[in-house]
């Protein structure tokens, strides 16, 4: 099957293209223009914008935490409109089916679920297997687990840690490793209520910094393309910019990704002791090594639910729940906290948070190092992305929003003075080229020959929110799945994983460990290849040699 997408404005920064031209697809891949063959299907993209499918690097879309949030918040569905019943369960407000479809209609074709407890990995993959159209990947969480902390306490070799990390990546079928409030959840079980980078987990005698460094090293040494993904200590607290700055410094120039930096960009200036420190942090990111990357975690106003593996932070925030209900899980390692919340325009703190996110987007120079996220659903649901693109692309639009927000809040940020506007090629870098590179996905995020034929086509509408909300056409693996913002058909994507080499002796050690600690077979926690009931549920992304 040869498909021609003709005459659109092709924005493909990886291949240096920004021009009116054609994109050819054959059998699920992008191909060079064939010499004599006629296409089996032609789509006219004249006057439209053509980009690779977008990649979301951090969005909590599946797994025990998200699903428990669904079950706790039935009221979030009542408002959901009935949708045409042409697709299975398409109208079920917040289901996996809806998630895949809504991402696809915005032109997103790959999404990373960033917080999977290794013991809940099978659950997460079952949900992802029921999330249509998009491809997905998971990050496995380590850093609050007894096994790693025990290795560190016993001063085991670096290779012992690498073998363990490789074992976890395989048993959980993940694409990378995330650490969430390193050591904080383990310390919370020992009744610690505040935990910073140089605090020590009781009994293990290991600091948060040591955990970060050990995991960063192991991930890098294994050749896993995605650097260690760090959710720092002290999320959400006034003055926590110091924690973020220390963590950036702790990267020591090696690859490290800091998640949802917006939640760590707070100073303690002003009458209320809460201010934006985004400018300072952006400067630090600009000055840091290129291997240090961040995503934003933009806040938008409205009701949402915070769902985080940072159990200590969620516990401390539980009584601020809006509406007043919450669930805190002391898990096997990280645990979880689900706290519904509503960001309000009239709320000083929420308004500062909104501005801080935009400041980070606009003050970090290189769109390849600042990633587009709302930390869905923590800062805002992913369905708010179109509005955020519009805000990034227009200072006039920002000025309108700013005029409606508490002036005291805007006064403790630099946002009103920022004139930068994102261009479409910069959006393409931030949401396509850079994410693919950050995860080692050489055949995604661009439209060169050989790339996966994931393509999004948008109307070139001056209303950028409208443009990004409903793609004109979306191709997944070369197949047309969205037209005029509506899902045409449900295909089933794959979960991308890595499989770094390891010394197989670790398998025996893990078997013994699970037997000893839990009296259970380690197999009961693994994700078997054939468990998901889809023909090709996984695709292995190569590690660096």
């Amino acid at each position: 099957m040869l498909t021609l997408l003709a005459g659109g404005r092709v924005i493909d920064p990886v291949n240096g293209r920004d021009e009116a031209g054609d994109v050819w697809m054959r059998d699920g891949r992008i191909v060079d223009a064939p010499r004599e063959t006629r296409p089996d299907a032609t789509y006219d993209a004249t006057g439209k914008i053509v980009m690779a499918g977008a990649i979301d690097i951090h969005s909590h879309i599946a797994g025990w935490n998200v699903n428990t949030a669904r079950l706790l918040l039935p009221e979030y569905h009542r408002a959901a409109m009935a949708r045409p019943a042409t697709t299975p369960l398409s109208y079920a407000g917040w289901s996996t089916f809806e998630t895949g479809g809504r991402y696809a209609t915005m032109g997103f074709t790959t999404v990373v679920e960033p917080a999977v407890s290794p013991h809940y990995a099978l659950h997460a993959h079952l949900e992802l297997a029921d999330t249509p159209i998009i491809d997905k990947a998971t990050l496995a969480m380590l850093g609050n687990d007894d096994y790693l902390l025990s290795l560190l306490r016993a001063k085991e070799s670096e290779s012992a840690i690498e073998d363990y990390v490789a074992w976890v990546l395989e048993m959980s079928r993940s694409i990378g490793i995330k650490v969430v409030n390193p050591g904080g959840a383990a310390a919370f079980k020992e009744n610690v209520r505040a935990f910073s980078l140089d605090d020590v987990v009781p009994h293990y005698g290991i600091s948060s910094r040591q955990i970060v460094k050990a995991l960063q090293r192991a991930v890098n040494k294994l050749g896993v393309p995605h650097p260690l993904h760090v959710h720092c200590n002290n999320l959400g607290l006034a003055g926590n910019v110091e924690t973020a700055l220390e963590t950036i410094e702790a990267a020591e120039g090696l690859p490290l990704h800091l998640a949802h930096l917006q939640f760590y960009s707070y100073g303690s200036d002003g009458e209320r002791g809460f201010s934006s420190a985004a400018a300072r942090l952006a400067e630090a990111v600009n000055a840091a090594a290129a291997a240090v990357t961040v995503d934003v975690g933009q806040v938008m106003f409205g009701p949402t639910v915070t769902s985080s593996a940072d159990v200590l932070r969620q516990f401390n925030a539980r009584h601020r729940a809006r509406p007043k209900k919450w669930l805190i899980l002391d898990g096997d390692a990280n645990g979880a906290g689900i706290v519904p919340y509503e960001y309000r325009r009239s709320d000083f703190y929420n308004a500062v948070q909104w501005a801080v996110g935009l400041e980070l987007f606009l003050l970090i120079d290189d769109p390849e190092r600042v990633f587009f996220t709302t930390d869905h659903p923590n800062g805002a649901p992913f369905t708010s992305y179109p509005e955020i693109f519009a805000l990034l692309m227009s200072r006039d639009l920002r000025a309108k929003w700013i005029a409606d927000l508490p002036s005291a809040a805007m006064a403790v940020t630099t946002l009103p003075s920022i004139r930068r506007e994102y261009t479409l090629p910069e959006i393409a870098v931030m949401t396509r080229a850079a994410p693919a590179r950050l995860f080692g996905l050489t055949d995604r995020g661009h439209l060169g020959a050989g790339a996966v034929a994931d393509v999004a086509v948008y109307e070139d509408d001056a209303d950028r929110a409208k443009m990004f909300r409903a793609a004109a056409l979306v191709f997944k693996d070369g197949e047309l799945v969205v037209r005029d913002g509506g899902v045409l058909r449900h295909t089933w994507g794959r979960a991308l994983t890595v499989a770094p080499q390891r010394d197989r002796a670790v398998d025996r050690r893990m078997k013994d460990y699970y037997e000893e600690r839990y009296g259970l077979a380690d197999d009961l926690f693994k994700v078997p290849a054939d468990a998901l009931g889809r023909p090709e549920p996984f695709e292995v992304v190569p590690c660096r040699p």
Partner: protein
Amino acid sequence: MERAWVAGEPVQLDAAIAEAAKLVAASRQPLIAGLGADVAGVRAAISLAQRSGGVIDHMHAESLLRNLDVARSSGVMLTTPTEAEVHADTLLVAGPVRQTTLFQQLVSGSSRRTTGAKVRRIFWLCPESGTATAVAGRDSVNVVGRALRDLPAVLAALRACIVGRPIAKTAISVRTLEQLSRDLKASRFGVAIWTVAHVDALAIEMLCGLVDDLNAKTRFSTLPLPPADNALGALHACGWMTGLPMRTGFGRGHAHHDPWLFDSRRLIGGGETDCVIWISAYHAEAPPWREAPPTIALTADGAAFRVPPRVHIAVGVPAIDHPAIHYLPSTGTLSAVAASQPSTRISVADAISRIAASLPDDGARRC
């Protein structure tokens, strides 16, 4: 051995599937109840309910939803069975508890905590009958109160004691409550345990509130013991596929959750359904009602029906006849388990998929 029956007569599986499909196709609102199936079976059942404008319920929905309701209206601290087993130095058991393997392990094991006491202290509130005697051999079990009906009042008094409010008079002496309060506060990581089937909403709310209060100074969590028949697995599958728990109907063109409206017994009693698909792959449980519309029963061997089903298919038991993914009480999560005695028995998922495939207009709506 026979595997399929129509109107009590043994038939080929194909004939039973065809008859079942005929019943579903003719139905205005099929009720899928019981739902004792592995995750694949539950997924197939939900898809069929959606496709046929039916209703999805589970035989243990009552107690599952009672527990969930507390979380949907207040705050809950929760832990995993594995974490409780490794970490808890104190257990606060409330009401009668079935002597499951997990529970036996929890009460007879010792804390593998790396700090603090190794011997797990156990306090048991209102165990009702002789259930507490099973562990009474341990000197560390302190039974407080007896009758289950006293539990909410005892919990209320205990909670008042913990936060230093005046204590109402209950079946338990103030001295005992004060001692218990001191003991709970002295724990390093305590876990409150109850069986969701046995404890009422008021008691669950009290337990959750009490645990939250204890966290002001120390660490405490809860471990509600879920019903069998993959009830939690079914709850989660409903959650991700529909965004809602079971007792959800699809007749209005969208998923609509209403624990009263879509209660199987009420639908049967009120004659609001014209076809029942009853699923019990784990325990060969028969439907509890005495009168029912035409029923398609997918059960393990040996179900004793009060009302003979129109179609009966003997299905395999998950993780015995065929590999299965389901909730395990020991892991506290969905686990993939191999078949212990593999057989050719059809699984619930396959049976429902075949029924669905035999419906008219079987098209793009399958998932």
